[in-house]
C-alpha cells in the first residue's frame, strides 16, 4: 500500500482494451504484479522506514496462516457435527409421524406432501439397493468401474500433457516479442482458454459415464464423480505449476514472477468468463429447451458438486497468485461477488431442486476437506518453494538483489534486538523443539483415539440395550393383553357410556397416572374402567415397578465393556416374573 502512495513510474505503452484480458502491457509495471514493487525502503514522512521487502513477505505469510487456521477450524467443526449426529437415522415411521398438523396453507400442504414423497422414495431406494447381487453381476460391475476409472485418468493425463506441450509451444513463440503486438498478446490467451475449455468439457464427459455405470450407493457415485473432477483439475494445475517453476523461473533476464502473475491473471479472468457462460448456457438454455422444445428432458438440476469444485479451483488459483500478483485477490473478490449473484438468479429461475436432497452436512465436510488438503496445501507448498529456493529475478521485484527471498528475514534477524533473535533461533529454527512438540501431539492423539474407541463401543451397547428394552416391553404388554382379555371375559361387560364430562375426566385422570401403566385399549370406544379389572392392573403395576427398580440397580455394574452380561439379566428377570404371573393367573381363575 505505501507503494501506491509513493511515486510510481508511469507505463510506457498505451492502454488498450485487450489488457483487461491479457493483463500485460499497461499492467506490467503497476502494483498489480510482483514486478512493480520496489526494493527500497520507502522513507515515509512520519514514522519509521517501511521495509518493503519484509512487509511483502510477512503480509503474505500472515495471510496464508490466517487462511489455514480458519480452514482447519471450520473443518473440525463440520467434522464434529457430522460424525456425532450420524447415529440418529430417520426411518420411514419417523417421517410419517412428523406431519405438522398446524399447517393451514393449501400450497404449503401440497409442497409438504411432495417433499415427504421424495424423502420416502429416497429412503426406500437406499434400503432397496443394499440387496445382494450374483457374482457375475458383481464382476461385470467391477469391470465397468475399472474401465471408467482408467478412462478418466487417461483423460486427465492426456489433458495435462496437452497443456504442457501447449505452454512449451507458447514459450517458444513468446521469445522475440518486445513491444506490444496485439496479435501476440492475444495469443497468450490461448493457454488459459484451452485450460478452461478442458475444465468445462471433461466433467461433462465424466457425467456421461454416470449413465453407463451403476453404483450400489448414490453417495459413492457422487464421491466418485468428485474424485475424478478433482484429479483432473489438480493435474492440470500441477502441470502448469511445474511448468512455471522449472522452466519459466530459470529464464534469465526476464521478470519471471510478473509473467507468472500475468498467466495467473489470465487464467482467473478466462475462468470467470467461462463460468458465466456455463451458467448461461448450461442452465438457462437447458431450461428453455427443457420446458419448451423437448419437455421430456425436464428442467436442469442444480449440480452442487460441480459448482463447488469450480469455486475451489478458482480459489486455488488465487492462493497461488498471492505471491506473484497480490492484487489478484481484489479481483477475485469482485469475481466471486458477481458470480454469486448470477448463480443465485439462475438457480431461482431455471433449476429445480436436485432429487437427492439430503446428506448436505456430510458433503460439506468433504468439500471443506477438499478445499484444505489439495488446494491450500498445494498453493502453500508452491509459494514456500518459491520463497525458499528459487532465485528471484534480477530486474524487478522487491527481492531484486538477494539470492533467495528468504534472505531478507535473515538480514532482519541480524539487525534486530536480542530477545527476538533468541526466540527465532531457539524456537522456530531448532529441531529439538519441533521434535518435542510432535512427540507430545502424537501421544495426545493416541490417547484421544482410545477414548473415541471406547465411546463407540458404549454407543453400540446402549443401542442394543434400547432394542432389548423394546422387546421386553412388547413381550410384557402382550402378556398383559392376554391377562386383560381373560379378565374381561370372566366379568360382565358393561359398556358404560357416560356423559362427555365424565369421559374427559376419566381420560385425564387415567393418563395423569405414572408412565408405566399403559394398558392397551383393544377397541376404540373408551370404556369405563370397571372395578373388577382394576385389581390385576394394580398387581401388574406393582410388578412393573419392581422390574423398573431392579433394572435401575443393574445400571452400576456394566461400567467396563462386558457386552454380554446386561442384556441377559433382564430376560432372566422376565422369566421369573412370567412364572409368577402364570401362577397368579391360575389363582385368579379359581374364584
Amino acid at each position, binding site marked *: 500500500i505505501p507503494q501506491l502512495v509513493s511515486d510510481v513510474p508511469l507505463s510506457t505503452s498505451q492502454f488498450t482494451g485487450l489488457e483487461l484480458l491479457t493483463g500485460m502491457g499497461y499492467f506490467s509495471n503497476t502494483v498489480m504484479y510482483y514486478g512493480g514493487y520496489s526494493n527500497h525502503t520507502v522513507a515515509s514522512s512520519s514514522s519509521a522506514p517501511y521495509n518493503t521487502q519484509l512487509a511483502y513477505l510477512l503480509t503474505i505469510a500472515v495471510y496464508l496462516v490466517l487462511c489455514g487456521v480458519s480452514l482447519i477450524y471450520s473443518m473440525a467443526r463440520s467434522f464434529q457435527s457430522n460424525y456425532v449426529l450420524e447415529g440418529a437415522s430417520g426411518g420411514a*415411521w419417523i417421517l410419517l409421524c*412428523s406431519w405438522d398438523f*398446524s399447517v*393451514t396453507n393449501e400450497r404449503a*400442504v401440497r409442497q409438504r406432501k*411432495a417433499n415427504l414423497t421424495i424423502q420416502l422414495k429416497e429412503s426406500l431406494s437406499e434400503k*432397496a439397493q443394499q440387496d445382494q447381487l450374483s457374482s457375475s453381476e458383481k464382476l461385470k460391475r467391477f469391470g465397468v468401474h475399472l474401465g471408467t476409472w482408467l478412462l478418466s485418468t487417461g483423460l486427465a493425463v492426456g489433458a495435462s500433457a496437452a497443456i504442457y506441450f501447449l505452454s512449451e509451444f507458447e514459450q517458444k513463440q513468446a521469445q522475440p516479442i518486445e513491444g506490444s503486438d496485439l496479435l501476440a498478446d492475444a495469443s497468450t490467451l490461448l493457454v488459459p482458454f484451452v485450460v478452461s475449455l478442458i475444465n468445462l468439457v471433461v466433467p461433462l464427459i465424466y457425467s456421461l459415464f454416470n449413465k453407463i455405470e451403476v453404483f450400489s450407493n448414490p453417495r459413492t457415485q457422487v464421491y466418485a464423480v468428485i474424485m475424478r473432477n478433482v484429479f483432473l483439475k489438480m493435474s492440470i494445475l500441477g502441470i502448469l505449476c511445474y511448468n512455471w517453476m522449472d522452466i519459466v523461473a530459470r529464464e534469465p533476464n526476464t521478470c519471471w514472477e510478473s509473467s507468472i502473475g500475468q498467466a495467473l491473471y489470465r487464467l482467473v479472468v478466462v475462468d470467470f468468463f467461462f463460468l458465466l457462460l456455463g451458467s448461461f448456457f448450461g442452465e438457462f438454455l437447458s431450461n428453455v429447451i427443457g420446458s419448451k422444445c423437448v419437455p421430456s428432458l425436464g428442467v436442469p438440476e442444480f449440480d452442487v458438486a460441480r459448482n463447488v469444485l469450480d469455486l475451489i479451483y478458482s480459489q486455488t488459483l488465487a492462493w497461488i497468485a498471492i505471491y506473484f500478483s497480490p492484487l489478484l485477490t481484489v479481483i477475485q473478490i469482485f469475481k466471486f461477488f458477481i458470480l454469486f449473484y448470477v448463480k443465485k438468479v439462475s438457480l431461482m429461475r431455471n433449476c429445480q431442486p436436485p432429487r437427492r436432497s439430503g446428506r448436505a452436512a456430510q458433503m460439506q465436510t468433504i468439500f471443506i476437506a477438499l478445499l484444505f488438503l489439495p488446494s491450500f496445501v498445494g498453493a502453500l507448498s508452491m509459494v514456500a518453494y518459491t520463497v525458499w529456493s528459487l532465485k528471484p529475478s534480477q530486474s524487478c521485484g522487491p527481492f531484486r538483489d538477494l539470492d533467495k527471498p528468504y534472505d531478507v528475514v535473515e538480514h532482519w534477524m541480524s539487525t534486530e534486538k536480542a530477545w527476538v533473535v533468541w526466540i527465532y533461533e531457539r524456537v522456530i529454527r531448532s529441531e529439538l523443539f519441533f521434535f518435542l512438540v510432535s512427540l507430545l501431539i502424537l501421544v495426545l492423539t493416541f490417547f484421544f483415539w482410545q477414548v473415541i474407541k471406547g465411546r463407540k463401543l458404549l454407543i453400540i451397547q446402549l443401542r442394543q440395550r434400547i432394542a432389548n428394552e423394546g422387546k421386553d416391553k412388547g413381550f410384557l404388554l402382550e402378556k398383559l393383553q392376554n391377562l386383560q382379555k381373560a379378565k374381561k371375559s370372566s366379568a360382565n361387560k358393561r359398556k358404560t357410556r357416560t356423559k362427555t364430562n365424565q369421559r374427559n375426566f376419566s381420560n385425564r385422570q387415567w393418563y395423569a397416572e405414572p408412565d408405566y401403566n399403559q394398558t392397551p385399549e383393544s377397541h376404540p370406544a373408551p370404556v369405563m374402567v370397571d372395578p373388577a379389572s382394576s385389581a390385576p392392573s394394580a398387581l401388574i403395576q406393582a410388578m412393573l415397578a419392581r422390574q423398573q427398580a431392579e433394572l435401575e440397580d443393574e445400571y452400576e455394574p456394566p461400567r467396563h465393556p462386558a457386552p454380554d452380561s446386561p442384556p441377559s439379566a433382564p430376560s432372566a428377570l422376565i422369566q421369573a416374573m412370567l412364572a409368577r404371573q402364570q401362577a397368579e393367573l391360575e389363582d385368579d381363575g379359581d374364584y
Partner: protein
Amino acid sequence: MGGTTSQLPKDLLSEYQELTFLTKQEILLAHKRFSDFTREGRNSPSPRVPMEKILTLPELKSNPFRERICQVFSTSDVKDGSLTFEDFLDLLSAFSDSATLEIKSHYAFRIFDFDDDGTLDGGDLEKLVNCLTGDTDDTRLTQEEMRQLISNILEESDIDKDGTVNLSEFQHVISRSPDFVSSFKIVL
C-alpha cells in the same frame, strides 16, 4: 337471529377448563367459533354440527386427516362425524399445547386407525401413506414402493411380529421422535 350470542355460563366454563387442557380464552374462542355454526338450528340444548360444516374451518380445511379427526372425536350414534360443542372441546384439548404425549399419541393412533379395529395393519398404513403423499399421480407411490415401505415400517416398529402395530408399539415409536408433540397441534 339478531345479535344474541349465547354466553357460556360461568360454572360450565370453569368445569370445562378443569376437564380439558385448554385455557379460559381458548374455550371462549372455541365457543364463539362453534356458535357460528349453530346459529341456524337453535332448538336442541347441545346442538350437533354436521361434519361438512366442521370441515369448513380453516384449520381443518387442508389437513389430510380432517375426516378421520371428526370421526374419532364424534360421539354420535350414527358415526357420521358430527360434533357437539363438547366433542369440539375434546378435539381442541387433545391438539392443544399442554396436552401430554400420552394423550396425543393415543389420539394419533386412533386417527391413523382407518378401519377402527384397534391396530394399524397394512391397509391402515397404506391409507396413511396415501393421505400424506398426495393425490396426484406423480406424487403417489407405486404399488411396489408402497409394499416395500410398509414392510420397512412394520420391520421397524412391530415388536411382537404380529403384522400390525398396536397402541403400545406406536407409542414406543412416537417416543423416539422428538418433534411429534410440537407438530401434533391445532390452535384456533
